[in-house]
């Protein structure tokens, strides 16, 4: 019976284009889109920002500011309607060396410029101002000569600021955003197993199959458990496909360190736990859903809400503390954290703090789903 149940569910899912799209196409698309969207280097971002600098006078400091911002990659004084306008006062150069300087740079930005990009420009402006100050100081102290070509002067200043070998990074700093997004969208996709489970249960309820099954020599709990096992295997197959594509192939497209297929074996136990939590959670929701419309709105809606509070859409560490606490209640948070550990740090061990909550969650959801399914069957009535 279990074999027949598994075969049946596989056949039903793989003959349903909508289910396949939800389980495979949607998460793969998300992984690809978000990977390309987040793979931009800082240099690529600054190149897309236009800055106009205006002043009432000409001095060395202003010229140097132009050079340092240009070196950072910004497009200077090219646009009629720039993203950022910097207006320098006549006291600009003197203010650089004052103990309590006046505000001499007026920063204004286009309303449409995102806060993140505006913040990046502000950071680059502060760095450029610091370099200008250092540049002028090194000139005054004779450590660099005005007779030197400007490029050499700048190289000398930059060597003392950008290339300080004081910090050793224990992790790979580049492309972190991509490495965070792939596990997130993988987990998001795996939890969408709720839709095929709901749709199957709704169809069976509406067309009388479930009533028919109640007259077969199998208990409701066994029937539901066999169905969940079938969906669990479907979920594992889905998770495995997404894992291979997301961890091994997509990183290659954007020159991000990928995980070797051989190394994926270490991710399988955690994937199995993640799939169990997704299937039991899906079963819990499906046992209460009555119509296809509810399946889409409730099943899909709950997944999107969980993804939002779990830090799948916005990184958790930039959320307020209260939101971070709420995320601790979501299975998606633990699932994505666990997979990120495996992906980013190439960890080979299941971590207790991500696996245990998921196991407990799966057991609780599974027990409740079985109980609620039994209640649902008891409410069935011959139409």
């Amino acid at each position, binding site marked *: *019976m279990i*074999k*027949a*149940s598994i*075969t*049946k569910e596989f*056949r*039903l899912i793989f*003959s*349903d284009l909508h289910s396949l799209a939800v389980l495979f196409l949607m998460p793969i698309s998300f992984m690809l889109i978000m990977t390309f969207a987040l793979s931009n280097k800082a240099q690529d971002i600054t190149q897309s920002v236009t800055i106009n600098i205006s002043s009432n006078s000409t001095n060395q400091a202003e010229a140097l500011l132009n050079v340092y911002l240009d070196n950072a990659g910004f497009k200077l004084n090219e646009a009629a309607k720039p993203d950022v306008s910097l207006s320098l006062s006549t006291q600009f150069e003197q203010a650089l060396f004052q103990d309590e300087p006046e505000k001499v740079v007026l920063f204004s930005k286009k309303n449409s410029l995102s806060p993140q990009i505006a913040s990046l420009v502000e950071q680059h402006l502060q760095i450029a101002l610091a370099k200008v100050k250092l540049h002028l100081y090194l000139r005054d102290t004779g450590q660099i000569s005005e007779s030197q070509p400007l490029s050499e002067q700048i190289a000398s200043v930059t060597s003392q600021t950008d290339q300080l070998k004081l910090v050793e990074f224990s992790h790979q700093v580049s492309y972190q955003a991509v490495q965070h997004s792939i596990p997130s969208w993988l987990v998001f996709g795996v939890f969408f197993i709720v839709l095929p489970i709901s749709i199957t249960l709704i169809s069976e309820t*509406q*067309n*009388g*199959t479930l*009533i*028919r*099954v*109640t*007259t*077969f*020599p*199998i208990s409701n709990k066994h*029937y539901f458990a066999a169905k969940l096992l079938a969906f669990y295997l479907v979920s594992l197959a889905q998770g495995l496909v997404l894992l291979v594509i997301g961890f091994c192939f997509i990183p290659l497209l954007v020159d991000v360190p990928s995980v070797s297929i051989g190394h994926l074996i270490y991710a399988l136990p955690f994937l199995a736990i993640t799939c169990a939590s997704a299937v039991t959670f899906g079963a819990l929701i499906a046992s209460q859903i009555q119509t296809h419309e509810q399946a889409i709105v409730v099943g899909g809606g709950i997944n999107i809400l969980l993804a939002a509070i779990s830090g799948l859409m916005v990184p958790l560490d930039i959320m307020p503390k209260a939101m971070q606490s709420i995320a601790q209640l979501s299975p998606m948070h633990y699932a994505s954290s666990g997979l990120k550990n495996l992906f980013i740090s190439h960890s080979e061990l299941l971590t207790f703090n991500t696996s245990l909550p998921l196991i407990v969650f799966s057991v609780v959801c599974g027990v409740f789903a079985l109980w609620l399914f039994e209640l649902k069957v008891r409410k*069935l*009535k*011959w*139409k």
Partner: protein
Amino acid sequence: MTSKDVLIQLADLRFRYQSNDFDTLHNISLTISAGECIGLIGPNGAGKSTLISLITGLLQPTAGSLFYQQSEAQQAFIKQYLALVPQEYAFYEKLTVMQNLHYFASLLTKIDEKSIIEEALTKCQLEAVATKKAQHLSGGYKRRLNLAIALLKHPKVLILDEPTVGIDPISRELILTLLTDLKQQGTTIIYTSHLLSEVEQICERIYGLKRGELININAIGDNAPLQISFAETISNSTLSEISALIPNVVKTGDSQLTIERCKEPLFILAQLNQLSLPTICEINFSTLHLENYYKELFTEQ
């Protein structure tokens, strides 16, 4: 009928939904024996579905008892001997006929899966479409598949809800013939349908549900009118003479009399024979068509 033949017995069954302040079914008593075909008719909302839900264990009675082969072990009997054919296509449209049969056969225990599938395919003449997806079948074949799945169990009791609705005459004939065969082989059938001609065709006993009460339609059929046409006009004095002897006589034409609610037509004819009446040229005693009964019974509902 021996007590050994009794398969299902409903004794003073009463059912009330929690949300209602009245009984949906009350005082339902019915004995169903092996090989019988019971027709259950009534308008929507009369309580048919509730009664079937009680028989199939989907609902539990508020009062009264249900016996299955003289035992109250309801679930054991249902799971082993009872099969349902819902009005909806209770199978998986995206699977083939064979895959559907395989799946439902896998839910059974201790069976030769291959042989029961072949038997169901043959009985319902589904061999030609065995590898076709159910969603691509005609309505007639879908109905046959719906029935074939129920037959996998070799049920002692088969409950069918409008099994021929919306299908072609060939499939309809096949299903009705198959049900007649099953009945002859000892399968008990409970048949609900709004196609009253079918109910009349295959059911020995027909029950109507009215305001939660079970009414034996066959008993009503015993009270059909006796219509007598004479060769000459019936005079008022002759009519008085007949009325004095026989109750419920109505003149329904110059030369026609109708004796309403005639329980014993032969006895009445014998009594008429004692009188000197014009020559009788036609006697019509036919039970009312089920449809007329149905209208008579349920118009007010």
